[in-house]
C-alpha cells in the first residue's frame, strides 16, 4: 500500500508529538496540539527534511500553519526537486 504524502507527514507528526496517527489530521496545528510550540515546530521541519530528503528555508518553515500545509509544501518541493 502506498501512503500519500499527507499520511507520511501525519506519521512524522504522530511520532514527534507522541499522539496516535488517527488523532492527527490535515487541520492539526499548534492550536490543537499542545506540545506544538516553536521549538517542536523546528523539530517537525527537521524531521520532514530527514524523512523526505529535502531542505526547507526558515521562511518556508514559518509558512507552515498546520499538517496539511506541511504536506502541500513537501509535495511541492518534491515535485520541483531535480530527479
Amino acid at each position: 500500500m502506498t501512503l500519500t504524502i499527507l499520511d507520511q507527514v501525519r506519521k512524522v507528526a504522530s511520532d514527534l508529538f507522541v499522539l496516535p496517527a488517527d488523532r492527527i489530521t490535515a487541520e492539526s496545528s499548534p492550536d490543537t496540539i499542545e506540545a506544538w510550540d516553536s521549538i517542536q515546530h523546528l523539530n517537525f521541519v527537521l524531521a520532514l527534511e530527514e524523512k523526505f530528503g529535502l531542505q526547507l528555508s526558515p521562511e518556508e518553515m514559518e509558512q507552515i500553519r498546520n499538517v496539511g500545509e506541511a504536506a502541500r509544501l513537501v509535495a511541492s518541493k518534491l515535485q520541483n526537486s531535480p530527479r
Partner: protein
Amino acid sequence: MPIVIQPYREEHESAVREFNQRLQSGGAGDDLVFFELARPRWLPPADGSKLLQEYFVAVENGVVRGGYALKQQSFSFADGVSRNVAYYHHPLSEGIVNKSYAAVGAMLLKDAMGRAPLLYCLGMAGYDRPLPKMLVRLGWSHFLVPFYFNIVHPYRFLREMQALRGTVFRRWLLDLLAFTGAGWAGIRAAEGLRKLRTPKLPPFTVERVEDFSEWVDPLWQQAKNHYAMTAVRDFQTLRTLYPASDAHFTRLRVHRSGHDIGWAVVGERRKDGKYGAMRVGSIVDCWALPEDALPVVQAASAALIENGVDLIISNQSHRLWGRALNQAGFLISPSNFIFAAGKNLSALLQPIAETQSQMHVTRADGDGLPRNF
C-alpha cells in the same frame, strides 16, 4: 509580509538600533542588544581567511525582528581532516519581548543550520537559559566544559567573591576566615596537598613573546592528531586571534632542552561584578601535546601571578589538561560553560561521552576574547 533572514548590511543598522530599543523598552536585560554595526569589529571577513565572523538579521518589511552571529573557523578532527565549523552566538529575537515573534528564535537557528552544516554553541551561562533549553530539546549533543580556578590571594578571594557572599551569615563567616587568617591557612594547606601529587618535571623555560610566528606551526602539526576535535591553532590563526597590537594578552612560549613544547595566552579579565574588586586572570588559550600540558599550565599560572592577579580561572575540556590544572594547584568547580554540537558535528564526535574529554575546547573557542578582556 514574511520574515526573511539575510546577511546584515549597513542599510540595516538603523533598524537594528530600533530593534535594540524595543528590546530594552520591553524589559530585556542590558546585555541583550544586537551588534549596531554591520561589519564585525572582531574577525571581520578578510580575503582568503577561514577565521571570520558574519552577522545575519531577520527582517520583516524593513523592520529587524532578530539577528545572530556566526564565527567560522577551521577545526581539525581525529580522522586528520580539517573542516569548517561555525560557532552560533548572540541569537536575539523580538520574541523575548513580544510573543507574536516567538517563532523567530527557531527561524534564526534553522537559518544558521542551513548556512553552516557543522555548528556548535559554547558558554550560554547554564542549562536554565533559553538557548541551551532549545538545543537540548532539538537533540543536540552537549556537555559542560569543566571550570578550574586557583586562588592566588586568599584574603582578597574571601572578601570579594560575590557568588559566595550571598547571605549575611556567609559574609560574616568569610570575613571571619579572611581577618583571622584561617581562610588563608586552609586554602594554602589544601593547595599544598594537591601539589604533593605534582610529578617532578624536567626543567623548562618560559619566554614572553610579542607575537606568534612560524615556530608555532610544528607544535600545531605535532599535537593536532592527539585531540578528537580542536580549532586550528597555527601561527596565522593565532596572529588573527591575538594580534601583537592587542596589549591585553600575554603570549608565552615554553621550551624544554632547546625545543618548543607549547604555548599559552593569558590575560586579565575585565571587571565583573561576580568577582567583586578582584583581579581575575584567565588561561585563555594553550597548546601542547596533552602529556606536556603541565609545564604550560605552570608557565601560564606563573605569568598571571607575576602580573598581579588575585584569582586564575580556566575552562578546559581535555582530561589531561584538567589533570595538569589539578596538579598545578587548581580546584574544579561547577561549570555553566556548555558545549553543544548540532547533529552533523555531533556525528563526527560519537560517542561524545568518551570524546568530550579528548577534545580541546577552551574559552578561546567562543566569542569572549573581545568581550571579556
